[in-house]
């Protein structure tokens, strides 16, 4: 029996800003249906990695495949499989929530009727149906984040990547967003790459990738990470790993 195609497959990916190396020979996979947490402190190289995965940066070295599609050779097919939530907001504040959805739908070749039906369903799922006609600038930070997640799902991607999606949110909103995204895996078998520096967002069953100063320090299940570091909990393991000096010089 052939192995399932990974949702995301990075091989020997390196990236430099001039002489500074932001990512150094990164190789990992996100299995289909997995919730994979990319743990890293500020400057670890998470955002650079996201920019490479989303093709906003040119790949300098290595290869990236999304659902088996090579991002450099088949960018359109690969991007069609990808839903993205960036750390900073990407909604148009001057448009209404629904108009932001319709614009996103058009950019994926989805017509207005279909887009309207999907928008209604997705906004109901994130409990914002009543805000469809409101301008985005009138929403709270947590609501905007929920809208962004719902919008990222509009074109039905199979891999969702989120770059520190809970930054700046209160505890309730954070928990709600985590619950929403985890629900996607349970209901849809969607794969998720969740970048954060908060260890309390990781569940025991998650896959964890630890990135520090551009180097991949650990990759595997939480239990394996605890075993290899001898730490009592994930936070201690993360601190132990990232307090050791790394060779790279990340951005």
């Amino acid at each position, binding site marked *: 029996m052939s192995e399932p195609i990974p949702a995301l497959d990075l091989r020997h990916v390196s990236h430099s800003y001039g002489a500074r190396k932001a990512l150094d020979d990164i190789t990992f996979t996100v299995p289909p249906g997995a919730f994979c947490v990319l743990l890293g402190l500020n400057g670890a190289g998470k955002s650079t990695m*996201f920019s490479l995965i989303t093709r906003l940066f040119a790949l300098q070295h290595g290869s990236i495949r999304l659902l088996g599609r090579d991002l450099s050779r088949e960018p359109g097919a690969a991007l*069609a499989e990808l839903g993205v939530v960036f750390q*900073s907001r990407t909604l148009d504040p001057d448009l209404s929530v629904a108009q932001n959805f319709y614009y996103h739908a058009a950019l994926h070749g989805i017509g207005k009727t279909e887009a309207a039906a999907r928008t209604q369903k997705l906004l109901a*799922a994130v409990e914002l149906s009543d805000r469809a006609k409101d301008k985005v600038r009138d929403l709270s930070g947590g609501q905007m984040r929920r809208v962004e997640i719902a919008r990222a799902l509009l074109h039905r991607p199979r891999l969702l990547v989120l770059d520190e999606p809970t930054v700046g949110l209160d505890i309730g909103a954070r928990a709600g967003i985590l619950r929403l995204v985890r*629900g996607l895996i349970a209901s849809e078998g969607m794969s998720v790459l969740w970048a954060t520096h908060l260890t309390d967002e990781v569940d025991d069953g998650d896959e964890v990738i630890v990135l520090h100063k551009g180097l991949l320090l650990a990759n595997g299940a939480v239990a394996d990470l605890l075993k290899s570091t001898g730490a009592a909990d994930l936070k201690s393991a993360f601190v132990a790993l990232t307090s050791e000096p790394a060779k790279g010089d990340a951005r």
Partner: protein
Amino acid sequence: MTAVATSSGENRRLTLAAYAICLKGICWREGLRFLHQRERFVSALVRPLVWLFIFAAGFRQVLGISIIPPYDTYILYDVYITPGLIAMIQLFNGMQSSLSMVYDREMGNMRVLLLSPFPRPFLLFAKLIAGTLVSVLQVYAYLLIAWFWDIQPPPIGYLEVLPALFLVGLMLGSLGMLLSSLIKQLENFSGVMNFVIFPMFFASSALYPLWRVKEGSPNLYYVCQANPFTHAVELIRFALYGEINWISLAVVFGCMSVFMFGAIVAYDPSRGLMGLRGAPGAGA
């Protein structure tokens, strides 16, 4: 919050209809944006009208215009200046579009566009089409008002000028897009005003015929001749009277191709400026 039913894994092909939807969506958003920015709408109309009602009225007695093609009789200065003001509307609109691209980049909206599965050159071209459509609507609004000011080209001219307006709009929009790839921050955009818009407009045939410029300064005449904006103005001027200025058409088409190619290369992360110094709005 409840789990979302998304039916993941939909196999969508980029058909011709999908391309049309994408183009329509980009035009729709550009139009909405223009309507939302009321100041931009008003100033886009007021700017050329101020030139027509005040500047042209003042200079009418000072500057006499001899019979030059495409005009077959003596004309008032107001009539002469109109193609230049039309091109000015398109010049400002092209630069406004590039300003909005810099704004989009800073706000992160640009990433939404560049994450689309459609080829990047198509997305940028669609963005240019959208900007051009907005500029053409502004031009017709201006021509409508100018009609009441006795600026009345032949009726067929209103139709025949349309292809010229599209070409000029695309050329100036491409130039704006290319410039937006060179500008790092919104604050730096004022340089475009000083180093692009003003020199392009004043060193052209928009305000005075080139034979007059030649009399005053032969060197400036050559600068005006080399300025693509001069050819944009002349293309519009001739088209308004049902004629084609072939040299201007060739220059405008050539410049449009070069600027568009430059903009597409600049926005390609594997080759362009954005890829070299960081993606649009990536904020890595």
